[in-house]
């Protein structure tokens, strides 16, 4: 049916076009949101890379996302082993607790963190944001790690053990190498989840730990800074590169559900 094909292409264009608009916008010489741009220059790119008001939040976001990734994985990997490999009293509750952060609207969490963190000095502070981001990243990483673990063939471990390897050797030389790709994907998701998180950061990051999404939000809301177009097009370019790599290497794009 050609009509259906045309409809699908139109909807695809509706999804794609607004994202591509950020690239010409970032090269615009106009200080306001005029489209199509009146002229082109690279000045706002220089402004982004040299202005501390933009570079500091970018660095903060990188630090917070990296720390979130490590803490999340340190919590999630052992817990996933427990939940996938053991049936124990309280298993259902543990599973529910780990999934819960995915069910709570971020604005509610932001309020809770603001109330609990400000008396103890964890607002306006990297640690506070890392804690909050770790909580919301745990379910995402847990879904991926436990799915990887469920797909693991335990006969590989039995074979290693029966050939004389101890539990530690088996884990390091058999279990870990097989699971590594899944762990890497989970780490990437945890990193990106933190890097993209906006609402909690708006409320608790303050000036000192301001993240990139927080700065972007403020810049839309308060000043309409044209550097925003540069940040947007850099972020979009990263996604383009990521999608291209996924398309070429896996013949199937990565997506989360």
């Amino acid at each position, binding site marked *: 049916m050609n009509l259906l094909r045309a409809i699908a292409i139109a909807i695809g264009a509706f999804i794609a076009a*607004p994202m591509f608009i950020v690239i010409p916008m970032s090269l615009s010489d106009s200080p306001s949101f005029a489209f199509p741009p009146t002229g082109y220059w690279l000045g706002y790119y220089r402004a982004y890379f040299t202005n501390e008001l933009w570079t500091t939040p970018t660095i903060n976001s990188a630090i917070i996302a990296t720390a979130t990734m490590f803490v999340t994985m340190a*919590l999630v990997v052992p817990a996933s082993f427990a939940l996938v490999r053991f049936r124990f009293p309280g298993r259902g509750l543990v599973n529910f607790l780990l999934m819960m952060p995915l069910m709570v609207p*971020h604005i509610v*969490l932001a309020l809770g963190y603001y109330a609990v963190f400000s008396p103890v000095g964890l607002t306006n502070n990297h640690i506070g944001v890392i804690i909050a981001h770790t*909580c919301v990243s745990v379910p995402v990483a847990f879904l991926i790690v436990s799915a990887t673990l469920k797909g693991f063939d335990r006969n590989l471990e039995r074979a290693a053990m029966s050939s004389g390897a101890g539990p530690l050797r088996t884990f390091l030389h058999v279990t870990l190498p097989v699971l590594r790709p899944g762990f890497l994907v989970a780490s990437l998701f945890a990193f*990106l989840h933190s890097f993209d998180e906006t609402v909690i950061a708006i409320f608790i990051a303050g000036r000192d730990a301001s993240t990139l999404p927080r700065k972007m939000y403020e810049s*839309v809301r308060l000043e309409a800074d044209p550097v925003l177009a540069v940040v947007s097009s850099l972020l979009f370019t990263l996604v383009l590169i990521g999608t291209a790599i996924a398309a070429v290497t896996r013949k199937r794009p990565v997506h989360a559900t």
Partner: protein
Amino acid sequence: MNVTAARPADNPTGRKAFRPWRSRANLSAWTLSAPAVLFIAVLFVYPLLDVVVISFTDPTLSLVHYREFFSSPLYSRVLGNTFWFAFMVTVICLLLGYPLAYVIVRYGGTLGFALLLVVAMSFWTSFLVRTYSWLVILGSKGPVTKLLAWVGFDPVPQILFNSFATTLGMVHILIPYMILSIYAAMQKIDPNHLRAAASLGATPFQGFRTVFFPLSLPGVVNGCTLVFIICLGFYVTPVLLGGPRDQMIAGLIGEQIEELLEWGFASAMAVVLLATTMALLAVYNRLVGLDKLWG
């Protein structure tokens, strides 16, 4: 293992069979999950409980904030708005997302792959970036305004900062969730079912209506649940694209804290939002099973 053989004499029902290896396994499982459980309990559950407590106790122990929220027409309008937007956005996402997922799965080929790439790209692009794009597109110096002026509108109607812009932006941001949910369900449908229907004399449309569509419903339910729930608590996009009359509950909560420092009232609204979300998820859990939502 044979449970009956290990059953101790004082436990004839055998419901709690005596299995010595069990307690060690339990201990390992608890030790492994303890760090994550403690972290979430202290640093996630406690702040949430605090919100609930504040809603009842700030400044004094009372239900005053809840009474205010449910009795004032201003706040009922915000609550009504929230549900109306969530409903509209979900319906539009479904109407646009279903045919797209259908073409991706059934037509495949280069077109299907390209469309899937576009959806994945949109999914991964920060929603702030996409919100910014809509500010440009719908703004007073944007292409849509120019087009309307060219067509002959004078004065050109304001298309930003109203319910239209909010709906459009939210549809654009949430449609990947809908498409990916439906796509996941459609991909599991065995094409042989459709061939069987055709060989029994069904027209392509009959085959779709009686075979393909019912089998794709789990994805539709998943997508609608996800989009509706994310919409209910959406903060950033309605605040940036909507006008003051289109405020949703999350925006109102934010405003109450940032500008008015009304902690008790903000917390009461947060509890209402949380309870609504949890109730919807509980219904979903009853009907489908929560583990399938993010599957």
